[in-house]
């Protein structure tokens, strides 16, 4: 039996029963895909495509790095979109495996750095990859952040972590189409860094804005 207070609340809520558009997964994924396409377009228009990309002039590690990051970005995006509509029984375990696989990238970078004989090759603009990767991540992740903000994530910390990781990975992939470097050391360090930074920002900063 509902109390008078409860009755009154129900009446007030029902009074405000304006139609709402259900947050279907397909719509969220469509928006995330559109944001990624826009990110790629912005990178290519502003920074240009890397030399030799169309001719296949890139290292195998360049391909592996970007495919692993793309996989990580997709796995995180799928989880983030799903987390906006919570349900008991949801697992969201895909990103965990994608993270383990993507961890190969920085590990390879560190191993290559440690095993490098002689002075480590370094170009002054290599750290810019971190900056550009993060800027691209903001474009790729803003739509997902908005989706989560409108949604009802019941684990805001995890949602923030996956949002940051996914946006960082997708942003780095987009920027990677413009980056001229091929080496394991460069890709393993400067292209893993934006993902890690974005993940930390998502977990410790953005998560606070996802509480409801």
């Amino acid at each position, binding site marked *: *039996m*509902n*109390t008078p*207070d*409860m009755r009154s*609340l*129900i*009446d007030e*809520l*029902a*009074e*405000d*029963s*304006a*139609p*709402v*558009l*259900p*947050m*279907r*997964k397909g719509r969220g994924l469509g928006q995330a895909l559109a944001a990624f396409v826009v990110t790629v377009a912005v990178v290519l228009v502003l920074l240009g495509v890397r030399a030799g990309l169309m001719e296949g002039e890139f290292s195998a590690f360049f391909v592996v790095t970007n495919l692993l990051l793309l996989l990580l970005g997709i796995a995180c995006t799928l989880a983030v979109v799903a987390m*906006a*509509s*919570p*349900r*008991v*029984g*949801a*697992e*969201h375990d895909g990103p965990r495996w994608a993270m383990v696989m993507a961890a190969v990238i920085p590990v390879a970078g560190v191993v290559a750095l440690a095993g490098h004989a002689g002075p480590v090759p370094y170009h002054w603009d290599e750290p810019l990859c971190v900056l550009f990767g993060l800027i691209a991540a903001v474009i790729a992740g803003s739509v997902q952040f908005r989706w989560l903000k*409108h*949604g*009802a994530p*019941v*684990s805001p*910390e*995890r949602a923030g972590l996956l949002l940051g990781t996914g946006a960082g990975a997708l942003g780095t992939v987009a920027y990677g189409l413009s980056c001229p470097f091929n080496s394991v050391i460069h890709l393993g360090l400067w292209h893993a860094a934006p993902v890690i930074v974005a993940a930390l920002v998502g977990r410790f900063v953005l998560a606070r804005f996802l509480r*409801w």
Partner: protein
Amino acid sequence: MVAPVTGDEATLARLMRAAQAGDRRAYTALLEEVARWLRRYFRRRIAPERIDDLVQDVLVSLHTKRATYDPARAFFPWLAAIARYRWLDHLRADYRGRTSELREDSAAEDSDEDVVIARVSLDRLFEKLPPTQAEVIELVRIEGCSIAEASERTGQSQSLVKVNIHRGLKKLSALVEKAN
């Protein structure tokens, strides 16, 4: 005229879809049934005098987040996730007042929906906690014991009681959608 509502999954999912489309009568019927369901859901997992507050919080959350229900999915797991989230908020809230002894809610009746409740229940969450954490959360945050009383009853030091409550609530937060 809305037909009398039974709180089964199919009926509530249908009402929720209608509510998302702006059907006020369906929404009223849904909220009434959900309020009844929530009272049973929170039974023995929150002090009796706090149940109404908690149920009202969940109803408001359901209202503000009603767009997040995906009509292609089941209703109860969605509702239970929101209910758990708000329940954890209440457990986290500073709660020092003593409460009356937890008792059976005589108004609640068992039904077929108990099967659904069991599947998404709060007990399933507690089962995922180490017994030392679950025990002190129940004593302090649900029954309203002081830290000193919980320490005496469990044999844990007072600082350990606090640590276990903190760790337990943190773990519960990460398990809201799990423990199915």
